[in-house]
Each structure stands twice: as C-alpha cells, then as structure tokens.
C-alpha cells in the first residue's frame, strides 16, 4: 500500500469514528442519563428517590413567592415548572444572598437537598439569563434608571439603618 492510500484510509477511518461518536452524543440518550437539573414536576415524580441526595432543581421563580428575611438572611421562594398559574412548584430555602439578577419569573438552578417536609434546602443558588440583550426601555434611559435604582437603594438603606 502506498503511503498516500494508507493516509486516505486513515482519514476515512478517523472521520467514521468521529461521525459515529458525534451521532452517539447527539442522538443517543446521553441527555436522559446526564441531566443537569430536574424540573419541579420531575423531582416530585421521583418520590422518595429525591430525598437526601444532593441534586439540582431548575425552573422559574414563581411570581410573588419571594420571601426575604434580611435580618436572618433567609430566603424562601418557590421554583415552578413555568410562569403559568398552577404549574408544579417546590418551596426552596436558601441562606445566601441571591445574585442581583434574582427576581420573580427568572430562571434559577438550585443545588441542595430535598427532604420529607417538602422543603428544598439550597446551598448554591444560580440564576440563568435568557439570550436576550436589550437596552433599557423607552423613557427609561440608562442614566435615569440608574438614578431610580440608586434612589431606591438609598431609601431602603435609610429604612434599614433606623
């Protein structure tokens, strides 16, 4: 065999291996076995299996569910499958200050344990961002909202200091 023919066979072999590997990753059920996080409904469906092991739970913050106790830095909120009414949700308790992007309806992933009392104790709270990047809305020009925000901050700092 000439070196040229040998190299071409090696090339075809390597491409075949690469293609098969890619197909396995893309169409195999790797995604089923390596799930980065469970949604609330999936976690609840696991029943007892979800207890005690460290797991990740992902979803959106249920609107109106955030309860922040500034004195004890305890945060309670519900992670739901979606923002619609009646979506399955799980109560999460966290003792860390959440990232600044944290708010109602934002996507979150929490790492921690779920127990029989139905509370998910988070020791790592992550917020995920959408793929949208927008300038501040009309009538909300950058400097203005910065002022509004700093006013709000000053105001609440004032209240906190009392």
């Amino acid at each position, binding site marked *: 065999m000439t070196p040229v023919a040998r190299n071409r066979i090696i090339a075809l072999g390597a491409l075949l291996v690469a293609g098969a590997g890619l197909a396995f990753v893309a169409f195999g059920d790797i995604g089923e076995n390596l799930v980065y996080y469970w949604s609330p409904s999936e976690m609840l469906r696991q029943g007892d299996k979800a207890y005690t092991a460290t797991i990740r739970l992902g979803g959106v913050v249920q609107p109106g569910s955030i309860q922040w106790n*500034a004195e004890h830095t305890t945060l309670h909120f519900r992670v739901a499958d979606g923002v619609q009414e009646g979506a399955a949700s799980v109560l999460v308790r966290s003792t860390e200050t959440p990232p600044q992007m944290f708010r109602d309806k934002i996507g979150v992933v929490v790492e921690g344990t779920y127990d029989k009392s139905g509370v998910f104790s988070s020791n790592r709270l992550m917020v995920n961002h959408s793929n949208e990047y927008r300038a501040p809305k009309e009538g909300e020009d950058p400097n203005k909202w910065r002022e509004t925000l700093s006013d709000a901050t000053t105001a609440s700092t004032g209240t*906190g200091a009392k």
Partner: protein
Amino acid sequence: MMTLSTLMLLAQVGSGRIQGGWGYVWACYAITIATLALYALSLWVRRPRASPDAKE
C-alpha cells in the same frame, strides 16, 4: 452590626438588575489584552532566525 454595603446588598434582593460590576468588565478586557499580548510576545520569541525573512 451590618455594614452599609451589606444593607445595600440586602435592599437589592428581588430587583433583578445588576448594578455596578465594572470590575468584572475591566478584568475581562485586561485578561484578554494580556493574553493576546503574551501570545504575540511568544511568537516574537519563537521567530525563525535561520529563514530569509528573519530580517523583518
């Protein structure tokens, strides 16, 4: 006793907006510029001397 910065942090919970953070921005640009500059330097150090265009 809580410091002022802690209180400011606490006040922001639920605001959904990042304030400040220029330090992260500068860090990213500085690291990138440093990486590109160091790589350019490594190319300069490894320049072929024997070849005819080593005179450049």
